[in-house]
């Protein structure tokens, strides 16, 4: 994990939270959408909040896919759940909404969960990702790391050719 990778994880967190917040704000302005009036969906997209929200969610998806290309799913998901904490702080200190004690407890639990994951390795090293069942008992051995690296290099050169 280097600085750039932490930046990508921060991007996943911030883009998801900001995108959701903007979509929710915009959709409250446009009002209800029903299955029978699908043209109202097009009107909703024209709302600047909704449009920016969609762009932010696209940015979220791109950074999320980038993070999944070098980190485990069980690392990326808890690590980026800090977005909930971010939203609560925005609600409390920018929008001056009331945040109940139960919610603060939830926020504390999420923060604790992120703390737990942050100390561990980001990626399980595998000889081959696709192999089913036959996994080596010692993933951390230097040999497995070497195998995984060769596989990645092989995959990269495959694209070049």
């Amino acid at each position, binding site marked *: 994990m280097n600085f*750039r990778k932490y930046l990508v994880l921060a991007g996943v967190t911030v883009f998801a939270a900001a995108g959701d917040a903007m979509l929710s704000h915009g959709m409250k302005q446009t009002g209800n959408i029903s299955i029978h009036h699908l043209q109202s969906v097009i009107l909703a997209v024209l709302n600047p909040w909704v449009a920016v929200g969609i762009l932010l969610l696209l940015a979220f998806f791109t950074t*999320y*896919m*980038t993070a*999944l*290309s*070098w980190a*485990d*799913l*069980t*690392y*990326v*998901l*808890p690590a980026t*759940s800090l977005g*909930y904490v971010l939203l*609560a702080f925005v609600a409390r200190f920018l929008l001056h909404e009331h945040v*109940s004690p*139960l*919610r603060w*407890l*939830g*926020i*504390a*639990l*999420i*923060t*604790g*969960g*992120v703390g*737990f*994951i942050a*100390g*561990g390795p980001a990626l*399980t090293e*595998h000889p081959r*990702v*696709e*192999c089913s069942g036959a*996994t080596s008992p010692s*993933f951390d051995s230097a040999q497995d790391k070497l195998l995984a690296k060769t596989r*990645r290099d092989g*995959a*990269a050169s495959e*694209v*070049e050719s």
Partner: protein
Amino acid sequence: MKGLYTWGGILAITFASVVGDVLLARAMKQVGDVGALWRKSGLIAVVRRTLGNPHFFFGVTAMAVAFFSLLFALSWGDVSLVGPAAASLTYIGNAVAAKIFLHERVDRRRWIAASLVAAGVALLAG
């Protein structure tokens, strides 16, 4: 009866998003480190390799199914129940599915993290 429909919807959202996350994670592991690939072969190679991956295609489809299940579930139940319940169960479901299907090493540290986050997300509804 309405409660049954709501929980059916919540389970459908959870199932579809776990399937989607696992497929997308597998697709991106097959694509390889995006940053390294970009530096080596350029952005177009990254995009082509990602979009051409069948797991990516099915993963996005599963995510779309999850989104429409959410819309249906919201018409049966409250947003304050459906949202956090589905998000919370997805964290646990993903930890189980990542261990079984992606062979990720979900050690005690990761179980605790997933459980704490799932409990925290559930409490945010309060």
